[in-house]
């Protein structure tokens, strides 16, 4: 067969497809490739060119095309494929659904979030008690945080809270950058499990010890300190626990595969972790705005306490009301897997259906056993 002639025939279309790809790579549309490629007609033309290139590639083996030509076709088809199947741009509606539907469901059912929350809040409470109980655990807080830092903390809260309102936005931005960054870092390190747990425990213990130290008697600035932390506490602490939980989910996917291949297990874990992390990021941002605008302000304490209660309530509603497992959830596969133990017939049914077979089997068995020696014996004789 004359490959040169064949290639010469096909080359015109391949060149046209290349020109279209060039135009689309530059501008995202094929308009500039020529008058015939504008609008719907251009799309149809591109699709048919792509399909014929695909067909050429499919037949390349049958035609016994030279390897170089096949490599060229692979590249051409891949290139057109990238232009035909482009990334769907992120629609805001989709992310809202992820945040309001998928995330709470995942958080509710995810054991890793529970573990992370237990570790974080447990260590936090423990460190706080130990830091506050000066008699039983002398110098615990000082050893954990360093006395210099504790003194600096208490000093910085000696004055009543009255930050210049001009500064609010900068403070909020700082908290967004700093705290959300820590949360994201905690999430990313979750894939390695240990660094994530370390970050989580470290933050819990340091925060708890600081809280404990400040709640001792006779510390200056304690009132202001608690005024400051009350408003944004619920959002921020929950967000830290959530991001660590999402990270742990990733790490568990890597190390505990539940019968899947490791790669598949990681992909699934990643898919499940993203909504949780997104929820945590939103909470971090909310906490940062609270911390920037409300916490340092001179607003009456009752207002800050009110906001803390409202935010805790919102989080609870989010987790429980939106997160409660729904029966109509389409997330699960229609095909259900059943354990072998569940497949065993009910006790009542055993007498009817099962036993005749069993009996017949036992009847047949002895018969075989007895006939075998007979057969063997007859052959021997």
């Amino acid at each position, binding site marked *: 067969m004359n490959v040169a002639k064949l290639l010469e025939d096909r080359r015109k279309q391949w060149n046209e497809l290349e020109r279209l790809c060039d135009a689309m790579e530059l501008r995202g549309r094929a308009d500039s490739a020529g008058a015939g490629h504008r609008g719907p007609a251009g799309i149809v033309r591109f699709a048919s060119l792509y399909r014929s290139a695909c067909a050429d590639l499919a037949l390349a083996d049958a035609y016994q095309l*030279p390897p170089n030509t096949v490599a060229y*076709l692979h590249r051409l088809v891949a*290139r057109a494929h*990238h232009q035909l199947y482009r990334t769907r741009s992120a629609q805001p509606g989709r992310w809202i659904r992820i945040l309001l539907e998928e995330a709470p469901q995942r958080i509710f059912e995810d054991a890793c979030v529970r573990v992370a929350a237990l570790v974080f809040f447990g260590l936090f409470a423990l460190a706080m008690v130990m830091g506050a109980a000066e008699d039983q655990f002398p110098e615990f807080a000082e050893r954990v945080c360093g006395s210099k830092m504790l003194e600096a903390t208490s000093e910085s809260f000696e004055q009543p809270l009255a930050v210049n309102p001009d500064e*609010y936005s900068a403070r909020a931005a700082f908290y967004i950058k700093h705290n959300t960054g820590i949360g994201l870092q905690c999430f990313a390190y979750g*894939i390695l499990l240990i660094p994530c747990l370390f970050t989580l425990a470290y933050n819990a213990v340091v925060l708890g010890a600081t809280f404990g130290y400040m709640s001792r008697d006779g510390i200056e600035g304690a009132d202001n300190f608690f005024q400051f932390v009350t408003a944004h506490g619920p959002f921020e602490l929950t967000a830290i626990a959530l991001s660590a939980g999402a990270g742990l989910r990733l790490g568990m996917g890597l190390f505990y595969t539940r019968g899947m291949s490791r*790669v598949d297990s990681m992909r699934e874990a990643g898919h499940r972790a993203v909504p949780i992390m997104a929820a945590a990021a939103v909470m971090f941002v909310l906490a940062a705005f609270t911390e920037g605008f409300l916490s340092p302000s001179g607003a009456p304490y009752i207002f800050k306490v009110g906001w803390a209660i409202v935010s805790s309530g919102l989080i609870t509603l989010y987790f429980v009301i939106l997160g409660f497992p729904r029966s109509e959830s389409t997330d699960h596969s229609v095909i259900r897997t059943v354990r072998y133990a569940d497949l065993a017939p009910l006790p009542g049914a055993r007498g009817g259906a099962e036993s005749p077979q069993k009996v017949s089997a036992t009847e047949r068995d002895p018969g075989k056993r007895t006939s075998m020696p007979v057969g063997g014996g007859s052959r021997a004789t």
Partner: protein
Amino acid sequence: MAAAQPLDTTIGVVTPENIAFEYQLAGPFRRLPAYLIDLAVRWGVILLIGAIILMIAGTLSFLSTFYGPLAQAFILVAIFLINWFYGTICEAYFNGRTIGKWMCGIRVIEVDGRPVSPRSALLRNLLRIADMAPVAAINTWDPDVPPIYLIPTGIIGLVSMMMTERMQRLGDLAAGTMVVVDERKWQLPIAKVDDARVAALASYVPGDYRVSRKMARTLATYVERRHFLTPQRRREVARHLTDPLIERFEFRHDIDPDLLMYALYYRTFLTDSSAEPADLGPLAGYSPLAKDANKPGGLADAGVNDASEAFGEQPASQATPTSDILSESRPGTENRSPLSSSAAAVVEPAAAPNVAPNVDGGSGG
């Protein structure tokens, strides 16, 4: 017999059109420059935005003290957003490419060949920090500096890339993506045959000889590569295949193996089976068959030393019809044929025909 998987970095992907096409995976040495470019671009953008915001805030600060902290806020948020989400945004909007990836010619796709989804792009970019672990401290080199762990070593990502089939780092594994080479060189290669002897020899290949699929592949690869070899090497490489073929076709044993490979390529890819016999021109009447070796072909008594001149500038027209324009120039060899080993035998598709290759090359090989 199942074809062995080639031991290289290509990976097959089946498209919705049910076509399996191949990607070349991008390894660490393609991805590192892309990352460094991205790093530079990221901080360049941050500095640019910072400068713009400061300029605007500087002009506005005459009006109120409010704008100074606000500018600071914008800069902080910009640093945060760009540092964490630069890769995600670029990959989601530019079809799997960041600026660095675009310059290095690589692209992120999902492992099943689809374009990367925003969710996957987010996940793989967030997890980059874990792939960059462990971080080294600056004071490893300078003991005066306080122990700040700043310098990412990327060992975890590197190990992960080396150990996975698709060269994925941990972020890629979790997001189900891979990075492939996105070639931008577009040329359609097909070797051209300018040598009259090729068609002549091809016409003597028995009609019942069918080139197998594997043989066709080998022939094409050989012809595409042969410009890179010296004539001696060509013969050395080709001999392994052509020696049994010469036996089978009952050709003379001094046929140039390279020429025979070329003729088979010509016959397989460049002629129609139903085409009329090639116009042999001056070579008509000459036969490479072993049984014809003693027939008077006019070659045996023709001069041999002017072979290169005859071949180079003044082709066949000036020589005798069956001149030895293409024959071996080694003196003292009997039964010379135009199809026997000669360095001047085949015109390179790339080389100009009048650049006469070394005629004496044949004697060496």
